[in-house]
């Protein structure tokens, strides 16, 4: 993978060998992922695509011009923030307030970016492009992998597929408009928390992580009725104290995941 990006970055000018080389590299990526993981990514991508359809449909049904959901899905590429901003505007709020609410919701992407920084530590083109693919699902899928190569491949494949299908779904929703029903009737609103839960469960087997996560989740839940969306989740970081304290005392420090 490292050599994949180095090679691509080093060959800006299109060479006849680039195509075949890239093909071999993609094969390399997919070899690093097992079929079960690819199926799991596929399922998440399809579920997100359906939510993307509803985003496009809700935006145009609410009277927004078609370019608004299309530009938002490609340039913002964060479902929760896009819906939050859209609902504020559809409810008569100021666009600037909608943007700020979306930014608060996306503040968690800052620590997520640090968590996957080693995945993107392969030169500036990869860093700049890959940063745009930092979303809850791609981070969760990547961090669930132990080997650095698998982690990198998982991040790129899940992030890129999510981006393509999210935008495709938005476009379908824009053109289907009001014909699209409510995805909640299909139970799809349960898919997003379930996907993240399944991906984070193995990490919770470490006691320090489990206590930090439980404490953080309790704080976030307690704060939800009182704070604007996004802030409660950030407050959960206070739960880190539960992991840091036993660590400082020098007991039960779990071995970090292997990094080469």
């Amino acid at each position, binding site marked *: 993978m490292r050599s994949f990006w180095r090679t691509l970055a080093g060959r800006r000018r299109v060479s006849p060998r680039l195509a075949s080389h890239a093909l071999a590299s993609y094969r390399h990526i997919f070899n690093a992922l097992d079929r*079960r993981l690819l199926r799991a990514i596929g399922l998440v991508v399809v579920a997100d695509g359906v939510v993307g359809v509803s985003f496009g449909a809700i935006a145009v049904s609410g009277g927004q011009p078609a370019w608004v959901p299309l530009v938002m899905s490609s340039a913002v590429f964060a479902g929760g923030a896009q819906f939050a901003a859209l609902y504020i505007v559809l409810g008569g709020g100021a*666009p600037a307030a909608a943007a700020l609410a979306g930014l608060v919701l996306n503040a968690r992407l800052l620590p997520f970016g640090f968590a996957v920084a080693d995945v993107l530590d392969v030169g500036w083109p990869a860093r700049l492009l890959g940063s745009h693919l930092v979303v809850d699902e791609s981070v969760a899928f990547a961090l669930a992998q132990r080997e650095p190569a698998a982690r990198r491949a998982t991040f790129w494949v899940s992030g890129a597929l999510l981006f393509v299908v999210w935008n495709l779904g938005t476009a379908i929703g824009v053109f289907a408009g009001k014909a699209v029903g409510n995805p909640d009737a299909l*139970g799809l609103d349960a*898919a997003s928390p*379930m996907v993240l839960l399944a*991906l984070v469960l193995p990490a919770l087997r470490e006691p320090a992580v489990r206590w930090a996560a439980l404490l953080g989740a309790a704080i976030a839940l307690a704060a939800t009725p009182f704070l604007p969306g996004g802030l409660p989740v950030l407050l959960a970081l206070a739960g880190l104290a539960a*992991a840091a304290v036993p660590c400082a005392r020098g007991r039960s420090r779990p071995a970090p995941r292997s990094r080469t």
Partner: protein
Amino acid sequence: MTIFAILLLAGGTYTLRAAGPALAGQIELSERVRWLLSVAAAVLLCALVVTSALTSGHGFAGWARPAGVLAGGVLAARRAPFLVSVMAAVVTTATLRLLGVG
């Protein structure tokens, strides 16, 4: 929605995303900081799971969604395949809504 507001949201979001990868390349993080960052990601993901399963806006999301996530979560904890647990969550929630549970 104005183009200015969208660009503000998009630019701000990209900055939040890119800060970690950009800065981590410049400074050497200790093993302990790296470990804490991966724990932080797990903590944030868990908080997202709990708040998005149980709440909608500032209030309770109704029983159907948390029941579905709980059903899928029990299966996942018993090491059921990913597809099975996610499908179980979706089907449970959809069935409960069909039966009139909120």
